[in-house]
C-alpha cells in the first residue's frame, strides 16, 4: 500500500465518510445505504473503521448504528470540566445495570434483585436520559411492563452491543444473571408473609427518594 492509496479512498468510502460526518445522529447501515442510493456500504464502513483506527477520531458501531467520535485516550484533553455529565443516583446506576444485564426485565424483577422497592421516578430518570425504554409486557399474569436498554445507552457507554457489557460472560456463567425466582425471594425475605415486602410504605424504601432523603435528612426526623 502506498501513501497515495491511503490518502485517496474511493468515492463510496468518501461518500460514507462525509455522510456519517455530517449526520446529527448515528446511522444504521440501512440508513446510510438509503442515503447513498442503496449502495453496499459495509465494505466502506470496514475500510473507514480501519483507516480511523489510530487517528484522533474513530468510527464506531453502537447497537447497529455507526458514528464518529473522538478517541478515548484523548479524553483528558477534551473533557469539559464545566459540563458535568448527568450524574445518576446510586439507585439509578444500579437499576440501569440490572436492566442492561438482565433485559428485558420487569420492575418486580429489578426490585427482587435490589431487595427494595424501586421508585417509579428512578426508571423515569433512565428513560428520560434515553437509556432505557419500555419493551412491551411480559405475557404472564398481571402482564407486567418490561424494560430494556436503547441504542443510545450503547452509544453513551461505548458498547457495540450488550455482549460487550463488562463481565457479562462471567456473570452468566456463574448463574448470577439467571431469571429471578420471585417465589424464592419471597420465601427468603418474608417467611410466612409473601406480600410483606410489597406492603411497605414506598416512602421508606423508595430509592428514587434516595438523594432527597440525604439532602433533607437533618429536618425529616
Amino acid at each position, binding site marked *: 500500500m502506498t501513501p497515495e492509496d491511503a490518502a485517496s479512498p474511493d468515492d463510496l468510502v468518501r461518500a460514507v465518510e462525509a455522510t456519517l460526518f455530517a449526520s446529527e445522529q448515528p446511522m444504521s447501515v440501512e440508513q446510510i445505504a438509503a442515503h447513498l442510493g442503496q449502495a453496499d456500504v459495509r465494505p466502506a464502513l470496514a475500510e473507514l473503521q480501519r483507516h480511523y483506527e489510530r487517528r484522533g477520531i474513530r468510527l464506531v458501531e453502537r447497537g447497529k448504528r455507526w458514528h464518529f467520535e473522538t478517541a478515548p485516550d484523548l479524553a483528558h484533553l477534551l473533557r469539559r470540566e464545566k459540563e458535568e455529565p448527568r450524574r445518576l443516583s446510586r439507585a439509578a446506576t444500579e437499576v440501569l445495570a440490572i436492566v442492561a444485564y438482565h433485559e428485558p426485565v420487569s420492575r418486580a424483577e429489578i426490585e427482587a434483585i435490589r*431487595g427494595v422497592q424501586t421508585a417509579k421516578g428512578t426508571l423515569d430518570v433512565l428513560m428520560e436520559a434515553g437509556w432505557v425504554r419500555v419493551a412491551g409486557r411480559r405475557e404472564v399474569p398481571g402482564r407486567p411492563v418490561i424494560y430494556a436498554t436503547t441504542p443510545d445507552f450503547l452509544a453513551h457507554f461505548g458498547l457495540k452491543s450488550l455482549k460487550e457489557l463488562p463481565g457479562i460472560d462471567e456473570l452468566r456463567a456463574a448463574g448470577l444473571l439467571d431469571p429471578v425466582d420471585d417465589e424464592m425471594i419471597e420465601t427468603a425475605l418474608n417467611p410466612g408473609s409473601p406480600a410483606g415486602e410489597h406492603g411497605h410504605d414506598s416512602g421508606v424504601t423508595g430509592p428514587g427518594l434516595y438523594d432527597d432523603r440525604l439532602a433533607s435528612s437533618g429536618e425529616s426526623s
Partner: protein
Amino acid sequence: MDLTGDIPGPPEAAEAEWDGAAAGEDRNEALYLEIDGWEGPLDLLLDLARRQKVDLRRISILELVDQYLTYIDQAEALRLELAADYLVMAAWLAYLKSALLLPREEQEDPSPEELALRLQLRLQRLGAMREAAARLMGRDRLGRDVFVRGAPEGLRVDRKHLWQCEWFDLIRAYGDVKVRSEPVVHMVRERMVMTLDSAIQRVSSMLGVALDWMDLRDFLPPAHDSWANPQLRKSALASSFVAALELARTGKAQLAQEETFGPLRLKAVKR
C-alpha cells in the same frame, strides 16, 4: 428514620457513585450505623458481607446474621426508628440462625442451609450488579470522555413533489373550461299550465249549467290522467281563481267567502 445526621460516619458512603467495599475500610465498626444510607436490609447485609473481605461465595451466613442482628440491636438501643423491612429481615434472620443451629433431623423444608444459600445467592447477585454499575459508569462515556462531532452539517431530506395528472383529467379539465366559457343561453323550460283563457272558458261554461253556489275547486278538471300533475293543478286553481274574479268583474258571476281562507264559492248571475 434519620441516622446520618446523628451518627458519626463517612457520608461518602451515601454518595451517588457507589464505591463498594473500599468505603468500609476506614469505618469505625464499633459504632457505625447508617441505615438510611443503605437501601433496605439486603443492602446492609451486602455491605456487612463485604466488610468481612472474603468472597461472597465463602461468606459465613451465621456470622453475617450475627452482625446484622447486632446492628439492628444497636439501632434499637439508640432508640432509632427502624424501617419495617429491616425489622422483618432481622426476625427472619433470627429464625434462620436458630434453624441453622438446630439439629438437622428437626428441619422443615426447605432446609435452613438451602435458605442460607439462597440468601447468599441474592447477595451475590446484588453485589454483581453493584460492580457492574460501577464498571459501566467508569467507562469512556459519550459526552464526558469521548465526543461526537460538535457542529454536524446535518443530513437534509428535501421533499420534492412528484406531480401527477392523468390524461383523462387533463382532457376533461379542458372540456370544463370550454363549457364554462361558451356563451351562456338562458332557457326557460316549458311548463304545463292552464291558461287564463281556457280557465275563463271552462268556469263560465260550467257556471251556465250550475244551479246553486259551487266551490271554486269544483271547477277544476278531474284530478286524473294529464291533470294529475300537482304543478298543473296549482296552475289550474290559480287560473280558475283569476277567471272567477274576471267573471265577477264583468258581472257574470257573484263570489262569496264566509271566512278568511274559507272555501270560495261562485254562482252565476241570472240575467
